[in-house]
């Protein structure tokens, strides 16, 4: 028996995180439910005039996606920190950069991808024109990956703190803002007929940058948190 290869190990971690998520349907359901509920709140709070709503649908959908990412990213490392698994991860002979990517991937699959897949339903509820739905899904897929990466930086830096919940939002919301701007602009563009390619390309560029840098920051953050 030897140490497992890095790829099998990361896949195993990914599987573990997904099983943990799906064993707890409330945590899976939460983002979706949250999404559905907040979509319902907007007409209630803003007044249901349909033409106005459809004008704001891209922004509303993106804000909700962002918030639901924000809420869940706090928990990515917390339970592992509390039950001692995180220490074991840091001591493992596997490269932390990649194992951290497995955590992020799981988080992205469970929040971002899931949301992107169900977002057409909500888009229709908000009267988003049909031609923009494809761009909505694509921009959510790309953008939520960036959000997950950035959110996990905040999670790693605050996981050792006794009261991390609010603080993490303060740290990462400013970094979420560019994603929100380009994401909602892409959808807005699709509504008005502007080609969405450039926007999606910018989101893709952000994603590449984040994939290259965020795991470094996360690994550093985790080491600091376990130490403190």
């Amino acid at each position, binding site marked *: 028996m030897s140490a497992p290869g890095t790829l099998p190990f990361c896949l195993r971690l990914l599987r573990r995180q997904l099983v943990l998520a799906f064993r707890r349907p409330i945590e899976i359901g939460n983002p979706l439910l949250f999404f559905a509920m907040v979509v319902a709140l907007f007409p209630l709070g803003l007044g249901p005039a349909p033409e106005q709503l459809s004008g704001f649908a891209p922004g509303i959908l993106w804000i909700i996606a962002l918030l639901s990412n924000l809420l869940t990213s706090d928990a990515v490392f917390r339970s592992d920190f509390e039950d001692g698994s995180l220490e074991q991860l840091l001591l493992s002979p596997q490269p932390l950069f990649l194992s951290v990517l497995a955590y992020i991937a799981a988080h992205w699959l469970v929040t971002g991808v899931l949301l992107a897949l169900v977002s057409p339903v909500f888009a229709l509820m908000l009267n988003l024109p049909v031609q923009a739905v494809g761009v909505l899904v694509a921009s959510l897929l790309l953008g939520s990956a960036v959000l997950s990466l950035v959110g996990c*930086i905040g999670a790693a*830096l*605050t996981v*050792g*703190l006794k*009261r991390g919940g609010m*603080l993490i939002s*303060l*740290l990462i*919301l*400013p*970094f979420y*803002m*560019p994603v929100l*701007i*380009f994401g909602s*602009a892409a959808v807005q563009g699709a509504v008005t007929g502007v080609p969405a390619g450039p926007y999606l390309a910018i989101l893709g560029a*952000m994603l590449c*940058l984040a994939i290259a*840098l*965020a795991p470094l*920051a996360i690994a*550093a*953050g985790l080491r*600091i*948190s376990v*130490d*403190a």
Partner: protein
Amino acid sequence: MWTFFHKLGSPPWLYSISGTILRWLLPITLVALAAGIVWGLLFTAPDFRQGNSYRIIYIHVPAAVVALAGYYVMAIAGAISLIWKMKMADVAMKACAPIGAALTFIALVTGSIWGKPTWGTWWVWDARITSMLILLFLYLGVVALYEAYDNKEAAGKACAVLSLVGMVNIPIIYKSVDWWYSLHQPASIKFTGESSIDPSMLYPLLLMISAFYALFTCCLLMNMRAELLEREARTNWVQRLAKQEGRS
């Protein structure tokens, strides 16, 4: 060169040299600040479009400019602390955050006070204003993160990571906010007085900008000194200092 860096890493040396610097710089700064304020408030002619309200520029612009520069100082200090593991860079980084936050706050508040007579509203979601607001969030995030940790060494490291991430992100944030604003273009409001600044207004403004830079340096050094004392409380030199100065 190396000896200089080596000395920079030594807390007692830093403490004493910063004391010397402060003894000269602080009075100069205060005089420059007072002179600039009196000059700007009383001795310049009013702007032909905005009248006297434009006098706010002498605090608004310096605060905004120095606040922006301060983030880079902070992030570079953070990078040094992470890459070269220099403890004093940590201290400098931590000391930057509250000053930067205060200056950003001043820029926002004076800007919004200026906005009321000029635009008739306290707040607009203009690109520059919005990015200034985001800058405030960034600063406050660093302050809050630092305060949240008990172990100040770990806090310093965590903040260094955060400010480095911030340094990568700030250009992205700025560009995206700029672009966001130009995309929507609510043409009703425009910044006035951009390039039409008159030399008689420029000189006091330059004086104030320099004074704010000097003030930033002074506050930075003072914060660093306090931080040094707290971190090094168990060492000989601090305890000797406490015996000399603590009784007063």
